[in-house]
């Protein structure tokens, strides 16, 4: 496993040095508001949000369901157009989805009719890489996620955790500058989720891709992120930007350290206050 990570790191570096500078994956969000619906039904999902994410940073968007965190992520992915404001990735305005921004969804986003190998190789194939190169990229990533044995299986034959590993590998096979993850482990059981978090961090350290990770799980956010951004519910806005003081590489037992607990409490208090506010608004 470790040797793969090292070889991947070289692989990723080779890719990058040739094309652009190492500082890829910068995200600038400027006064972004996103409204859904029109006329009377119009409601804001994201309000006047400004945010900077540095290249290689691991940022978690944390908040209760319906707070607009997925909408904000989707605006970075290019699925949602901001009603006002701009989203820049590496200085370029996002105008639609593209292979420079890999996307990992909550579940069932693998192509059920493609084998695991073909799912992972889909990005390189679309990019016009030859059969041999596509295959070699797919094999590299299959080894990385430890699913070489399952290369010729179909997604439905894999467990939820395995499917998500494939989903991450598929997004990374394009060597994107940004990896956008929308509650990728939300549907997994607790044990699997912990393992997935650790393996995600190992992968991330090899790729040094910028990661924006949406979750409503406080532990997950604190364990994974460099920065935790807490979003408030309706209309969505970032109410706190907390730096995670934990060392890297992170280990599972850090979850019991005082720093971890303290930050977790801070997050929980903020979210609780927000939830109460939302609750009161609804009952007024």
């Amino acid at each position: 496993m470790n040797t793969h990570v090292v070889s991947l790191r070289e692989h990723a570096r080779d890719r990058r040095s040739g094309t652009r500078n190492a500082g890829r994956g910068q995200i600038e969000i400027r006064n972004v508001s996103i409204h859904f619906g029109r006329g009377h039904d119009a409601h804001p999902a994201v309000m006047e949000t400004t945010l900077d994410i540095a290249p290689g940073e691991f940022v978690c968007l944390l908040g209760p369901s319906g707070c607009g965190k997925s909408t904000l992520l989707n605006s970075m992915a290019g699925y949602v157009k901001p009603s006002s404001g701009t989203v820049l990735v590496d200085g370029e305005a996002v105008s639609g989805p593209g292979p420079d921004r890999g996307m990992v969804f909550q579940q069932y986003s693998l192509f059920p009719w493609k084998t695991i190998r073909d799912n992972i190789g889909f990005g390189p194939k679309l990019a016009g890489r030859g059969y041999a190169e596509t295959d070699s990229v797919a094999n590299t990533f299959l080894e990385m996620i430890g699913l070489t044995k399952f290369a010729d299986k179909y997604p439905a034959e894999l467990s939820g955790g395995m499917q998500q590993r494939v989903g991450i590998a598929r997004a990374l096979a394009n060597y994107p500058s940004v990896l956008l993850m929308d509650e990728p482990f939300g549907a997994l059981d607790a044990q699997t989720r912990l393992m997935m978090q650790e393996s995600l961090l190992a992968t991330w350290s090899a790729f040094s891709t910028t990661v924006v990770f949406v979750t409503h799980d406080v532990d997950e956010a604190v364990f994974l992120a460099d920065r935790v951004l807490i979003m408030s519910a309706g209309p969505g806005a970032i109410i706190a930007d907390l730096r995670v003081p934990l060392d890297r590489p992170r280990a599972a037992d850090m979850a019991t350290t005082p720093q971890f607990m303290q930050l977790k409490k801070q997050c929980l208090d903020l979210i609780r206050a927000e939830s109460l506010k939302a609750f009161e608004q609804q009952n007024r």
Partner: protein
Amino acid sequence: MSSQAHASKHDEPAAVSDGHESKAPGCATPSPNAVPQGSRRLDFAEFLRGVLARHAANVAISLAALLVGLVFWHVATHTKLNVYINFENVPPPLRVGEAFMVHLADPEFYIHIAVSMRRILTGYLLATALGVITGVLMARSRVARAFVYPYIEILRPIPAVAWIPLAILMWPSEESSIVYITFLGALFPIVLNTLHGVEQTPEVLVRAAKSLGASRLQIFWHVILPAALPSIAAGLAIGMGVSWFSLLAGEIISGQYGIGYFTWNAYSLINYPDIVVGMLVIGGLGTLSTYAVKLAMQPFLAWQRRAR
């Protein structure tokens, strides 16, 4: 064990519209050792054996049921049963069998079959091409949908027989009017199933493909079409059945060859056993061609059967 799962899936091909529904919500624990790699051939033998074992009892029951029917038919015709339904002029099964054997040795019989098959093939292939294209267009474009839907709604309930007079007036030859009627029968189920299938494409897969860099055409080819395929396959199978249905209507009233003509002609010539021969041949050919359609679609739906 795995062969059982295969067999039960096998019973309901193509009817499932969305492969995702068959997925257990991420809790199935796959066993990497259960199915060693490179043993697909072995799997198939096992699969076949499983199917046979599972189906042996069903086949026995079905055969027994057919036998009961035959015996009833024989007794009813033999005793000239007349209780509201009159069996007096119904040919008994043995005479039908005799007539069938005679026809098997008659080259003209095969011409009838070949002509019918040719009409089916022409009409059906045209319906498949046009139906899939129309269905996809309707699903992807609001304008196309609003434009085509009224035609489908109005034309679909019109039975093939009702088309015959107008078809004869419209088309230059009898042959083309029969093919037209056949085509029309297959068209609607194919269009509607394609439409349904394309509409059911999970949005998350389209998004995933976009973020992987797929163009519109690539999304269509790699995502929308395969996602719609189970539903299209169901439409193709239904369309084949309906196209036989329609062909017969066309052949009974016009044409000089074809198994429908053969059947109707037997009635005109008071050759009652041949009526039943014609009917049975129609039934057999209809079943066979529907089965052929399903078989032809199977390689494209392998991913569905592999889902546990």
